[in-house]
């Protein structure tokens, strides 16, 4: 009959709370003791049962979290696209009617381009076995290194898991693209080099812009405003679900918001409340994504 001390050791053994040396000693003991082996078999099951119960509990919690519909359902996507297009036309009409609130016509964009799911981040490198949980060094003060790792990972991703899914393109009205002043975060002033090059960026870390969100506003559902040195976001902006990106060139700051796979440029010349309008310019989007993934 396995004694109390043996059972304690067994518990430590099964939960990896034993030194390597003690493990070897215990294994020898286990081999020589059939009662202990019987207890070992039982305890392995019981501990698995405890772990399974916790996993079930966590899964149940996650199942209760409201999530957006996953992509891929063609019919649902078409209906969604149709609905979005209709809403955008209505929003455009609303904007047109309420023009006294918006003083920057150059940012007008009538139809939001449906951002396709392929715009998600590039596939990381698939490790050959379980993902390594041992020390991986570099913290976020080596963004260039990390960027190299990410792009290397993209090239090496296994062919059995597709790199890019079929693109889902919404019919868009391209006749009214934003005309003015497309901000190019990669370009230096009067740089003779190609504007598509990524200029080396001095990463200073955290954005210092103070942000307040108003998720309950009945009038403004997806708007922003600069006021009293702060950025106000009106809409479903839960903490950690959006990102503020600031670019400083000389003494000029340009601010973008990233939310739900889309980028929005912010005008901070006055304190007007403006609707958030997704950026559609592909080159700019590419740059912004690259910066986001380089942090």
């Amino acid at each position, binding site marked *: 009959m396995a004694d109390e001390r043996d059972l304690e050791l067994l518990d430590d053994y099964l*939960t990896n709370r034993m030194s390597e040396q003690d493990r070897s000693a215990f294994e020898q003991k286990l081999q020589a003791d059939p009662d202990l082996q019987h207890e070992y078999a039982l305890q392995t099951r019981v501990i698995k049962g405890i772990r399974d119960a*916790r996993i079930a509990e*966590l899964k149940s919690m996650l199942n209760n979290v409201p999530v957006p519909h996953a992509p891929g359902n063609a019919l649902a996507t078409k209906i969604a696209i149709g609905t979005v297009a209709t809403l955008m036309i209505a929003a455009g009409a609303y904007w047109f009617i309420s023009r006294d609130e918006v003083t920057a016509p150059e940012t007008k964009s009538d139809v939001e381009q449906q951002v396709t799911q392929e715009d998600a981040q590039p596939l990381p490198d698939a490790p050959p076995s379980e993902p390594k949980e041992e020390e991986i060094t570099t913290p976020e003060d080596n963004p260039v290194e990390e960027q190299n790792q990410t792009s290397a990972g993209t090239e090496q991703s296994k062919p059995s898991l597709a790199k890019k899914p079929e693109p889902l393109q919404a019919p868009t009205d391209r006749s009214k693209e934003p005309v003015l002043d497309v901000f190019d975060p990669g370009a230096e002033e009067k740089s003779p080099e190609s504007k598509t090059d990524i200029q080396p*960026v001095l990463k*200073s870390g955290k954005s210092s812009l103070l942000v307040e969100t108003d998720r309950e506003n009945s009038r403004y559902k997806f708007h922003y405003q600069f006021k009293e040195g702060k950025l106000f976001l009106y809409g479903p902006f839960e903490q950690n679900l959006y990102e503020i990106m600031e*670019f400083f060139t000389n003494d000029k700051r340009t601010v973008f918001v990233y939310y739900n796979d889309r980028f929005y440029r912010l005008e901070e010349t006055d304190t007007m409340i403006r609707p958030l309008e997704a950026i559609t310019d592909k080159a700019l989007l590419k740059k912004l994504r690259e*910066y986001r993934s380089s942090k």
Partner: protein
Amino acid sequence: MVYRTSASMNEKEIFERIQGGDEKALELLYKKYYRMMTKLVITNSGTEDEARDIYQDALIVFWQKARSGNLVLTSKISTYIYSICQNLWRKELDRKKRLSSEERDSPVSIDMDTAEKEKIIARCMDQLGDTCKKVLMYYYFEDMSMQDIAEKLGFANTDTAKTKKYKCKKKLDDLVKSQYSAQDFLD
């Protein structure tokens, strides 16, 4: 040019909250990356249900590793979770392939004994009080120390937590053993 982002603190914050056992942070992560992660499975011959399952499983793996202190994360959280999803889905695809070829060759046999025993243990877990369940889950799944468990659950000290864990585990073991005996008797 200088580039600053609000996200660099957010990632660190989220990870620290997860390490500290903040389930709300896990929910936030779940929502944040739902589309990205489920897309991986759906665009590789999976259904939405399978995608959701794989993503939840991956997130729970991440949770467990972060909670038990076995993870020093420097790549983005999404990168890490994505690679777990890839692994899990690949295994599942392999399992399906194996299963379908086995079915062709011979009838599938289910290990009734294991399944039955697992059900017994699950039923016994349900008979424990909430605190007992929590103590055991934190100890055996999250690999928390007695000190952390004491703090988390408001016990007076480490010894109190140790005693509680001992009693709860003993109760569970006794329940399981008695159920097993009953089962053997009925078989």
